């Protein structure tokens, strides 16, 4: 599973990253987590809001901090 936490570095983006780490532990799955903070990279992905979450290339969370429980559901 390839996970991208997208956000240009405000505290919300940090929170989402934390929640993703928590969720991976709770769900007990294998995942590669990448933080996309570079504006050019964010542009290339076509994302317009922060923080956002992409799992295997699909945008699942757009512009908000999702709770750990919600992310766990998405990982399954």
């Amino acid at each position: 599973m390839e996970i991208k936490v997208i956000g240009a570095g405000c505290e919300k983006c940090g929170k989402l990253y934390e929640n993703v780490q928590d969720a991976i532990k709770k769900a007990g799955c294998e995942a590669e987590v990448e933080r996309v903070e570079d504006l050019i990279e964010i542009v290339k992905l076509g994302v317009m809001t922060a923080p956002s979450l992409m799992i295997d290339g699909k945008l699942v969370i757009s512009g908000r901090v999702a709770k750990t429980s919600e992310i766990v559901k998405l990982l399954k």
Partner: protein
Amino acid sequence: MRGWDFFQNQILGMKWLNEVIGSGLSAIGLHISNRWTGSIQFFLYDVIKITILLCFLIFLISYIQSYFPPERSRKILGGFHGIWANMIAALLGTVTPFCSCSSIPLFIGFTSAGLPLGVTFSFLISSPMVDLGSFMLLMSIFGWKVAIVYVVLGLVIAVAGGTLIEKFHMEQYVESFILSAGKVDIESPDLTQKDRFIYAKDQMVSTFQKVFPYILIGVGIGAVIHNWIPEVWVEQILGDNNPLGVVLAAILGVPMYADIFGAIPIAEALLAKGALLGVVLSFMMAVTTLSLPSMIMLRKAVKPKLLGVFIAICTVGIIIVGYFFNFIQPIIL
């Protein structure tokens, strides 16, 4: 109009709360004619009133905003041209959720989709300046006439500002990496009703936590002004006697940032002490629209000249609106 007056005074203004607090304080032996007690009453009343309004408004607005993610706004705007596009952009800016770290991805997203620069700027100007929250808040503090004029004028500034930027052909001042980015069509995830309620609730809680200290500070300053600052001081600098009050307010307000919920109690108190309506409102507009963090963010997407023009247009617009409000104060308040 009696039904509306009741709504205005008791539901939005919660005047009954002021009475309750006053009675409560008297019951424990403090008289509201006393300066200290007057301050305490004002403090408690304003903090509770603003907190309740904040929670209710943020919840309602976040719910509405969950229907307008930027991806959808971008699609909608693609279908409009000319000044209509600017107007729709200004309106959409009002209902789109906005966090300053989203402003750059959003700017890029709009530009790479081929939306004209002016349209993107109309969106960027109206987003922080005019929003449902300030509308309802203004309605509860200053009355519906002020609220509607404020929103209309804010939208006018947004449309005019965006159109001007386009007329000046400032596309060359956008950072090159943005212009070379291709458009990526991305669908934002669909939300169920339950998702929307959870989102609205989360926004309400996080905004409350973030803003509550500012409410306390704002109301504190308001209480000091209310009971301790002589009217004469306020009138001299911010009232009829100073024709430059609006300019002063705008220039002071631009580099500052305060949440609107914190700025309102200060504005309320100054108004009661004889400051002109326009001075107070232009200060509020300046303080919420432009802020150092968002300017720093925007600088990543546009070159200094365009940024300068953006700031100048907003400031001038705010000043003009301020004088207009001063002018219509007798009819509107």
